[in-house]
C-alpha cells in the first residue's frame, strides 16, 4: 500500500514525463510502427490505384534492385573506414592533448571546431578545395608531385566515396578526441608509476596499461559511431548525391531516392525496415558482448 505522500509523488512523476512521452509516442514510436507496417503495403504516391497488402514484395523488389548490393557494400566501406579513421585520429590527438603542453585548452578548442560546423558547410568547403579547376588541394598536390594533373576526386568512380570518407573523418574525429581524452585523464597515475618502477618502458606502459583502460569508452563511442555513420545522409548527399553512377550511394541515400524521387513509400519503408533490422542485430550483438564481458 502506497502512502499518501508516495501517491502524490507518483502523480507528479507522471505529470513530469508526460510531455516527453507524448513526443516520443507521436513522433518516434508511431512513425517506427508505420515504417514496419508500410513495408508490407503497396504504397506509391504516383500510382494510387496500386495499394493494399504486398506481403514481402517490397523487400524482394528492393533486394533485387540493380544498385542494392552496391549500396550495401558502399555503406559498409563508408562506415568501417570512417569509424576506423576517426578512431585513429581521435586517439593520436587525445594522447597528444593528455601531455603537459602549453596552451592545451587552445589546442583542444581548435580540434573541436570541425565538429561544431554544419555538415553542409564542411562538405561545401572541402568540395571547393577539391575542385579540379582552381581547387587548392589539387594545385598543391600537383606542385608536390603527388599527382601529375588535377584530379576530379569527387567525380570519378573509384575515388568519390573515399573522398567523402576522408571529409567525414575530418569532421567527426573530434568527438573521439574529447571522449578518449576524458578516458585518458581517468587512467590512474599510480598504476603507470608502479609499472615504470617495475621497468616497463613508455611503449609497454601504453599498450598494456593505458589502452586496456580505454576499452569501455572506446567500445561505446565506436558502437555509437557505427550507427551514426551508417545512417548518415547529409555528407554524401551534399558532396556527391550518391554519384557518379551510384558509386558513392549508401542505403540512406537509396531510401531518400525511393521516397522523395520515385514516391514509392512502400519500398522505401522496406529498405528502412531492413536497416532497422541490421541495427537491432548489431545492438543485440553489442549487448551480449558487453554483458558476457561483465560476467567473465
Amino acid at each position, binding site marked *: 500500500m502506497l502512502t499518501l505522500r508516495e501517491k502524490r509523488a507518483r502523480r507528479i*512523476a507522471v505529470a513530469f514525463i508526460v510531455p516527453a512521452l507524448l513526443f516520443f509516442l507521436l513522433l518516434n514510436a508511431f512513425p*517506427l510502427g508505420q515504417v514496419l507496417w508500410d513495408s508490407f503495403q503497396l504504397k506509391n504516391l504516383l500510382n494510387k490505384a496500386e495499394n493494399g497488402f504486398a506481403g514481402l514484395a517490397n523487400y524482394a523488389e528492393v533486394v533485387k534492385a540493380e544498385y542494392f548490393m552496391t549500396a550495401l557494400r558502399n555503406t559498409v566501406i563508408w562506415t568501417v573506414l570512417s569509424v576506423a579513421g576517426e578512431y585513429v585520429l581521435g586517439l593520436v590527438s587525445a594522447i597528444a592533448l593528455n601531455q603537459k603542453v602549453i596552451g592545451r585548452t587552445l589546442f583542444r578548442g581548435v580540434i573541436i571546431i570541425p565538429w561544431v560546423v554544419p555538415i553542409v558547410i564542411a562538405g561545401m*568547403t572541402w568540395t571547393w578545395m577539391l575542385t579540379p579547376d582552381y581547387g*587548392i588541394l589539387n594545385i598543391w598536390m600537383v606542385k608536390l608531385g603527388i599527382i601529375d594533373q588535377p584530379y576530379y576526386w569527387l567525380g570519378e568512380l573509384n575515388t568519390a566515396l573515399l573522398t567523402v570518407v576522408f571529409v567525414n573523418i575530418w569532421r567527426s574525429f*573530434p568527438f573521439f578526441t*574529447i*571522449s578518449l581524452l576524458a578516458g585518458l585523464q581517468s587512467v590512474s597515475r599510480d598504476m603507470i608509476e608502479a609499472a615504470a618502477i617495475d621497468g616497463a618502458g613508455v611503449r609497454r606502459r601504453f599498450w598494456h596499461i593505458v589502452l586496456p583502460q580505454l576499452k569501455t569508452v572506446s567500445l561505446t563511442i565506436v558502437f555509437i559511431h557505427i550507427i551514426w555513420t551508417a545512417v548518415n545522409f547529409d555528407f554524401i548527399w551534399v558532396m556527391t548525391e550518391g554519384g557518379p553512377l551510384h558509386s558513392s550511394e549508401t542505403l540512406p541515400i537509396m531510401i531518400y531516392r525511393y521516397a522523395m524521387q520515385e514516391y514509392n513509400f512502400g519500398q522505401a519503408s522496406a529498405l528502412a525496415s531492413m536497416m532497422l533490422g541490421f541495427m537491432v542485430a548489431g545492438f543485440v550483438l553489442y549487448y551480449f558482448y558487453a554483458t558476457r564481458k561483465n560476467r567473465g
Partner: protein
Amino acid sequence: MLISRRKQRILTIATYLVLAGFTFYCLMPFLWMFVTSIKPDDQIRTLNPSFLVKKMTFGHFDNVLNNSAFLTFFKNSLFIASVTTVAALLISIFAGYALSRFVRFKGVKLFGVAMMLSQMIPGVLLLIPLYLLMKNVSLINTYASLILAYTTFTVPLCTFMMKGFFDTIPYEMEESAEIDGCSRVGIIFRILLPVSLPSLVSTSLFAFLNAWNEFMFGFVFINDESHRTLTPGVSLFKGLYQTDWGSMMAASVLSVLPIVIIFVFLQRFLVEGMTAGAVKG
C-alpha cells in the same frame, strides 16, 4: 620522473609537432573559406592561389546578402533553433528530474528505457512516416514541422544530460525546501536550476547546435523559399551559383559565424556536454 630527460624532450617535441599538424588540419578549410570569400574573382580562379589577399573585396558578401534569400534562411534557422532549444529544455528539465528522483516507480524506469532506445533510432529511418504525417496534418512548409521534429530528436539527449546534473545535487536540499512548503515545480525552478546553471547552458547549447546544423528534415519538409532554413538553403546555392565559389564561401562564413561566436564563449560547456554524452552512451 618516469622516463629519461632525453626521451622526455623528444616526446615533447613530437607532441607539439602532432598538435601543430592537427591545428593545421582542423583550421585550414576555415582559413581557406574565409580567404576565398574576400578575394575578387580573378584571385580565386588562378593556378597560383595564395593565402595572402592582394585586393580585399566585400562583393561576395554583398551578393549573398542582397541578391539572394540568405537573410531569410538565416532568420528562419535562428527562429526554429531558438524555439526548439526552449521547448526541448523545458520538456527535458521535467523529464530529467523525474528520471533522477523518481526511478523507484516502474513507469518512470520504463520511460528511461524508451528514451534510451529512441536516442538510437536514426532520423533517416523515420523520414518517410514523418513526412507523410506532416503532410496529413498540413504542416509541410511550416516552421512547426521542423520545430516538432527537432524537439523530438533533441529531447532524449537533453533529458539524460539534465538527469546527470540533477543526480549530482543532494536530495537534502529539496527536503528542507519541501518542509518549508515549496511545491515540486518551485523546487526545480528556485533551487535546482540556479545551482545547475552551467549545465543548463551546455544542454541548451547542444539543442541549439543540433537544430542549427540539421539538414535532412529541413531539406525534405520545406519546399518553399520563405520558410527554408540555412543548411538546405546554402546547399541549394550550389546549383544556383554554379562555380561562383566566392559567394558560396561568403555564405558559408556567414553561416558558421553564430556558431563560432557561441563556441568562443562557451567552449568549456560544450566539452562538458560532449563528455557527458559520450560516457552515458
